[in-house]
């Protein structure tokens, strides 16, 4: 055993010599081996950092290759790690969706019941659902029939199928909005920018038939006509219906629609992280406590005088 330790120490000494020799070669100016070793690492680190910086500088070039404008980051009230959605905005946003967007855009995955106790009371939602005519059936005679909507019904679709939607929209298909803020780079920032970003084509860009210029849209020409104008609708709570107000509200609604678990998730996250934080300290203390004997022992090597 002692022989092996001896050997190990031997080898490690020799290796240290190698390291020192090598670092002397690397930095001839200084005599101190450790110091020059450090400068070698410093040089390598600088090189790596430089490489990363170059990479970072190259990266934006890729994005600049696309022509569209990237949406700015808006200060959404739900942006913080533990910030909930603004439920009053969800309520107003649903009004915008129902009065403006729903004419062309479906929301397949959403049902009336989803909004109960999120932005509407059960009674209110029942009344809203009953306003819609839902096709049901077949009845006992085998016929389909229409009936007033119920809480369990999904939002009605504006078009029976994709072909009908395209036929009514000059060949363009209005996408389903159930997941739209998750399904686009930039999320609600992007949707907000699209809704408010319409403008006349700048110099060099031509008008195109049935298409509208929007710098935030990939390709810049979007088939959706500007949907929001000041006072295009009226809020039931009397909020002035400006373009940016409606866009903000409908984006909050769409964010909720794509992530209905948003508030619960963050609330649970707050609890989970607090608990795990406490547990981290406790388990680190426990680990240190159990290891203290091993960590504080001292191993002494005494070569045998007989070997």
């Amino acid at each position, binding site marked *: 055993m002692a022989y092996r330790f001896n050997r190990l120490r031997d080898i490690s000494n020799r290796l240290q010599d190698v390291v020192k020799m090598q670092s002397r070669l690397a930095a001839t100016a200084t005599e101190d081996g450790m110091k020059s070793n450090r400068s070698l690492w410093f040089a390598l680190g600088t090189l790596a950092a430089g490489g990363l910086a170059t990479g970072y500088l190259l990266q934006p070039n890729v994005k600049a290759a696309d022509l569209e404008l990237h949406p700015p980051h808006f200060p959404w009230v739900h942006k913080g790690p533990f910030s909930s959605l603004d439920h009053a905005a969800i309520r107003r946003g649903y009004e915008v969706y129902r009065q403006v967007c729903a004419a062309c855009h479906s929301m397949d995955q959403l049902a009336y019941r989803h909004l109960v106790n999120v932005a509407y009371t059960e009674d209110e939602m029942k009344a809203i659902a009953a306003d819609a005519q839902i096709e049901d059936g077949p009845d006992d005679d085998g016929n389909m029939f229409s009936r007033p909507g119920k809480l369990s019904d999904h939002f009605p679709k504006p078009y029976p199928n994709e072909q009908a939607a395209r036929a009514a929209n000059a060949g363009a298909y209005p996408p389903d909005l159930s997941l739209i803020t998750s399904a686009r780079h930039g999320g609600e920032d992007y949707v907000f920018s699209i809704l408010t970003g319409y403008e006349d084509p700048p110099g060099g860009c031509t008008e195109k038939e049935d298409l509208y210029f929007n710098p935030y849209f990939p390709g810049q020409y979007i088939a959706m006509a500007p949907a929001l104008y000041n006072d295009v609708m009226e809020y039931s709570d009397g909020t002035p219906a400006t373009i940016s107000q409606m866009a903000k509200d409908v984006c909050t609604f769409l964010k909720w629609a794509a992530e209905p678990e948003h508030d619960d998730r963050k609330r649970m996250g707050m609890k989970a992280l*607090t608990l795990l934080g406490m547990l981290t300290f406790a388990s680190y203390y426990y680990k240190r406590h159990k290891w203290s004997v091993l960590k504080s022992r001292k191993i002494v090597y005494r070569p045998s005088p007989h070997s």
Partner: protein
Amino acid sequence: MNLGRTIYNALFRRTSTFVVTIVVGGFIFERVFDEGMDNVWENMNRGKLWNHIKHRYAEDADEADE
């Protein structure tokens, strides 16, 4: 130190009282922690949650479905 000794003698020394302490303590901790964190959450997001705005829309049944 004296307090720790008293607690140890009263609760942790016997297995039976130890188990009861842990179970009851766990239950109490869960309730306090959960309610406490929910309160923190409501305070951080005051005015934004459904709980804070529903009185505007529900005339009578405030406590109906919490």
